[in-house]
């Protein structure tokens, strides 16, 4: 995938946690083999060419495609699984796979888990007694600075996903025209309990432009967001302030 995954795991029995970590890494490599659109021989590429049916693929493929269909429906098509006619679930796979491995580590007995998959973070538990996980949000217009700090205080699970121009480029499509979306946004950060959805919503919102994105994100339950425009303006949903700290 060309994506860097970073793990920060606290507590649990070291042997058990290490084994789970090895398992998590193996899973991520497997996800890459199955879902990478850069690999001609991946199941997703072969599926796109009609060489395989969904039933012949790993069960995760069906799971991801179902999630993508739901994301498309809930975002009125702004989250899209096809790009230029080609099947491409990339917008959901990264968040989904990061969440999966974070969940695996939590299930192995860790008291705190933070997994960062290419800038999208899934958090469980706490890093230490009486201290919540804190996630900085990079300022897209000032490399090296932060736009905000999100705290997971009071939440057993929290995810922070950021979608930006450098990452997505022309993959952001306006479903009304089928062409690259014209957007005034340079970054969208979505905060919610699960990274699979936070990632999908950040991707969908990006294409909408700042006004529509803010209205739509405001309408989603359990979701807060921070948007940065090319004009260096910041927009937040009403509840984001409570998540900062």
């Amino acid at each position, binding site marked *: 995938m060309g994506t860097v995954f970073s793990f920060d795991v606290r507590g649990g029995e070291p042997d058990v946690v*290490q084994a789970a970590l090895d398992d998590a890494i193996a899973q991520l490599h497997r996800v890459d083999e199955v879902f990478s659109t850069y690999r001609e021989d991946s199941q997703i590429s072969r599926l796109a060419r009609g060489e395989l049916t969904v039933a012949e693929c790993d069960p995760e493929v069906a799971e991801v495609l179902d999630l993508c269909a739901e994301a498309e429906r809930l975002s009125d098509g702004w989250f899209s699984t096809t790009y230029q006619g080609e099947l491409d679930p990339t917008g959901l796979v990264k968040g989904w796979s990061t969440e999966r491995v974070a969940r695996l580590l939590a299930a192995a007995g860790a008291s705190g888990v933070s997994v960062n998959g290419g800038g999208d973070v899934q958090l469980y538990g706490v890093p230490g007694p009486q201290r919540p996980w804190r*996630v900085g949000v990079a300022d897209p217009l000032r490399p*090296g600075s932060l736009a905000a700090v999100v705290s997971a205080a009071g939440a057993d699970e929290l995810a922070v996903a950021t979608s930006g121009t450098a990452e997505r480029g022309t993959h952001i499509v306006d479903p009304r025209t089928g062409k690259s979306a014209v957007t005034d946004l340079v970054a969208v950060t979505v905060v919610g309990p699960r990274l699979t959805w936070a990632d999908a919503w950040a991707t969908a919102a990006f294409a909408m432009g700042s006004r529509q994105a803010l209205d739509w994100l405001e309408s989603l339950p359990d979701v807060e967001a921070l948007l940065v425009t090319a004009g260096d303006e910041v927009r937040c949903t009403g509840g984001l302030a409570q998540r900062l700290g």
Partner: protein
Amino acid sequence: MKKSHPLRRVVLATAATVSGIVLLLSLKPGTDPGSASAQGGTVPPQAAAGQESPQGGTADQSSSGARTVTGSAADTQYGPVQVRLTLSGDKITKAEAVQAPSGGQSTTVTANAVPKLNQAAVASGTADIDAISGATYTSAGYKKSLQSALDQAAKSAPAQPAASPSQTSAVAAAPAPDGQTVDGDVVQTQYGPVQVRLTLNGTSISKAEAIQAPSGGMSTQVTSNAVPKLNQAAAASQSADIDAVSGATYTSAGYKKSLQSALDKAGG
């Protein structure tokens, strides 16, 4: 608030110099038995919580009492803006707008912008951040070189007892001469060669720079965006009390490899 607003520039300039973007990937495993972290497929790194650096950039500085400083009111096209900072010793613990434009569109802009400024200023003071979410770059070359430099610097540190019980990073050891530099391997990427150089200050990395980086066409733009982030990351990782990893992350294997090799050389 617009980019040109002077108050905003001051507050963010403060944030930029102190806040850290850390590459967890770049740090060696700590000795804390209760925690473990790894980066997929390569050297397991870890940033220990509560780590203190010789440069003293942590959240644990004792405060000499809170004081407030109020900036002059600045006129904007939307109305006057005035910022008040609360300081505890040398650290900014709070930034608030005591006057901010309101009415019409301005209320929306203010309400949205002020939390950002507050958090940016506060975060820069405490640097107690575990992870950073951001738009990512997929420049494989940088990461590789970075990782190689980090490995070298870690290996070069002679094995000695840690200076203090709270220092659990395996990189901590006897200080190297100030300003010692370590170069990572040159890593070839499809855009050209990438090489990272680390400057060490005692046991800390004070600077990380790309001494070879792809340029021309799109590469120049990616390079000029990528290098400051990674540089900040490597430098800040030594001085900030941050639990988990990196800021706008770079899936840049070349940079990481060169950095890791520089770290390994510094360590060896």
